[in-house]
Structure formats: C-alpha cells, structure tokens
C-alpha cells in the first residue's frame, strides 16, 4: 500500500501548474539513484494523469497515489 512507502526524497510542487511538476520531477530523478523512491506533492489535477505517463515513458515504476486535502501525493521508483 502507498501508506507503507518511505520516500527517499520529497518534491513539493503544490501551487505549481503544468508542466512545472513534471519538469521538477524530471530534474529530481536525474540526481537520484536507481531504486530510490521519489514522493511528489501536487495540487494540479493534471499531475495524476501526467506523472504515471511520464514514469511509463521513462521506464520508472509508478507506485501509486494518495489524495490529501487539496493535493495529491504521488510515488515513483527510479529506474
């Protein structure tokens, strides 16, 4: 379950709109090691579609998401 995930890094993109959350994710992933987990916080409704697609394209594993009050937590395992 998503609740059990302990992320290695957290990226706060709340308040940012498309494409900034994806760009910040792309940049953060470049600095992370294989197998590490990135948590992205986003209030842009588009991120829920865009991040899984981005992960799939890049070969990273999308682990799931969790809705919070006014934003979403999304989890990604780096390739």
């Amino acid at each position, binding site marked *: 379950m998503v609740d059990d995930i302990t992320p290695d890094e957290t990226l*706060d*993109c*709340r*308040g*940012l*709109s*498309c*494409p*900034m959350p*994806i*760009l*910040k994710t*792309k*940049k953060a992933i*470049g600095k992370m090691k294989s197998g590490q987990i990135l948590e992205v*916080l986003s*209030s*842009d*409704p*588009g991120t829920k*579609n865009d991040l899984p*697609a*981005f992960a799939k*394209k*890049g070969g990273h594993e999308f682990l799931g998401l969790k809705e*919070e*009050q*006014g*934003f979403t937590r999304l989890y990604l395992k780096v390739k």
Partner: protein
Amino acid sequence: MNEEKQQSAPVQILSRGYEKVFFENWPMWLGGLLIGVMSIITFAWARPWGVAGGLRNWGDWFFATIGIYSHKPLSPWISTNSVLTLGLLWGAFSSALMSKQFALRPAPGLELLKGIIGGILMGTGAAMAGGCNVGGFYSAMSALSASGIAMMIGLIMGAYIGLRYLYWELEHFPPGAAGGGEKGEKSFDWLRVQPYIGALALLGAIVFAWAYSNMALTRVGVLLLCGVAFGIIIQRTRFCFVRGFRDPFMTGEGEVPRAIAISLIVSILGFAALKWTGLRGEQVYVPQAFWFGALVGGIIFGIGMVIAGGCGSGSVWRAGEGQIKLILAVIFFSLSTSLVKAGIKGSEALSKLMGHRVFLPDFLSYKWTLILLIALLLVYYLLATWNEDTDKFTVEI
C-alpha cells in the same frame, strides 16, 4: 453504499453513465476524434471553431467601454466569436464542477507573472497569425489554408524556445511551493455540492440557447452549445495543444501529437466536403497571414503558451477550472490581442507585412491539397511516435 442498492434501475444506469463521463479518464485519442467531429459540426451550423476571436471581442469591448476605442465592437452576447469562447469557458467550468475538480488554485508570484507574460505573448502572436492555436492553426489548417502550416512550424519552434527558457528558469530560479491548494477549516463539504451546481450550469446553457433561438438567433444559440461541448470534451480529456508541440522535446511522449494529427485529419476531411460542395465559402477561415504573420506569430504564440502552461483553448479551460495563473493569462491575452490587432489594422504597412490569404486548392486543387495535408500530419504522427522510442528530439535538463 446501502442507498445505492435501493436505487431503481434507471437511476443506476444514469449514475453509472455519470461516473463514466465525469470520473473516469478519457483517452487522449478520443478527445482528438471528438474535437474533430465537433469542429465539423460547428462549421456546418455556422462557422469554424475559434477561441482568440472571442477573447479579442472581450478586449475590444473593454477598451471601448473605458473610452480608448471610439467604435463599440459587436456585443459579446451577439458576436459568434465571443459566444464560442464563452461556451468553452462555460463547458469547462461546468465539467470541472461535475467531476469535482473545481477549486480556486493560487500560485506563487513568479508563476502568476508567467501567466501574465505568456498571455501577452499569446495575444500578440494570435493577432499576427489571424488566430490562436485554434483559429490560426487548427481551424485554419482544416480550412485548407497555407498559413495553418506556417503557424504549425512557428508553434513547434516557439514551443522549443519556450521549453529552453523553462529549463533555464529551473536552474536559476527554482520555483517555490505555494503550499496546499486549499487551507483552513471547512464549514461544509463544498465538493459534495459541486456536481449539482455543475448540472445547473449546463442546464443554464441550454436555457440560454433556447432564449437565443426565440430571438431568431438560433445559430448563436447553437454555437454557445458547441462551445460548451468543446469545453466538456477538452476538460475531461485535459486536451492540451501545448503538449502536442512541447512534449516531444520535454518528455518525449507522443500521445498528444498523435491525437492532434487524428483530430485534424477528421476535421480537414469535413471542411473539404463543406467547401468543395459549395455549402460554405472557400475563403472562410483562410487567414490573411501567409507567411510572415503565421510563422512569426506562431513562434511568439508558441513561446507564450509554454510559459503560461496553456494555449488559447487550454488557458480558457484551465481558467474555467479555477487556476489563477491561467485566469490572468486569459485576461492579458484578451487585452493584448485586442491592442495588437487594432495596431495591425490601423497600419497598411503592418497589414501587408503579415501576408496574404492562401487557399491551397487554388494552387494545388482539392485532391492534392488533401494529400499534402494528410501526408504532413502523418509525418508529424510518425515522427512523434519514432521520437518516443528514440528520444532523438528530447532535450535533457
């Protein structure tokens, strides 16, 4: 949950349909296909789809009201440009409510500034190209004009430049977070009532269309409903023309370019039928912008849409969803496009510079025009897909 079991069959069918339309993700290609079909229906009823013209009408109206322009524009309630864009906003707003996605979303200061600057650039580019990504590119290409092709090239170049700027900004001014979207205690569950307000808003659009029809303005009423349909389709698919030009460079994804190609091929075939048979005028939506206005306007527009994070249609539907950055983009788009258009109209030299009307079948015949445009879109489709595997165009940070 118990309540659901007690619901009668028709209610269950309706609520399943509601879930499907407003809560499940629509595939992007379906969005493209539906936009293509709506584009033809809109033209068959009255005129091609456009967005920037409506924003310009609102800007003209504002400047006339405060006394800067001496001539009043056509009333925003009658202008077909205005009514189409109003419908888009209306449809996106209703659809966001129906799917519980409406919220006033604040953004950090730099993002708001980017909304304003992006809006001004888009307004300027749209005035030069004779329309935004819709009127200057999508509908113009559907209308078999050469400037649609020129603007497409400009949009690709502009998207690349805009993306380079975003990369630079990320290095030098990493955006701060504005914090949670909604804060504070809730006195009552606002999300729960959203669908009811959304349904009322949709019903309101039908009542308006009815009223237009009773005033012998049936076409205006139908255009309002067409705009609403575009708004719902685009909000539900999150259809974004920016992504069609930006994604191949940014993430290498090709889903949106493919959807745009499919959409345009459908729309082009419909427009060709309406024009060839003489049901619609051949020069309709052939902008007087080939090639300078369309190409250079396309570049300026392309930079603006990437910085703002929304194109002509994209800014309007995101504004309808409550994103403050895009609301600012729409306001500054409408003001700048009104001013720049007035400037171009007022100067013979500038009007000449923008270019000519080039209706491709006048030079190539209908047959070869269709072959050329469809081949061009297939190349775009294939290149985007090839790039998905190879990342040849993708720019690393």
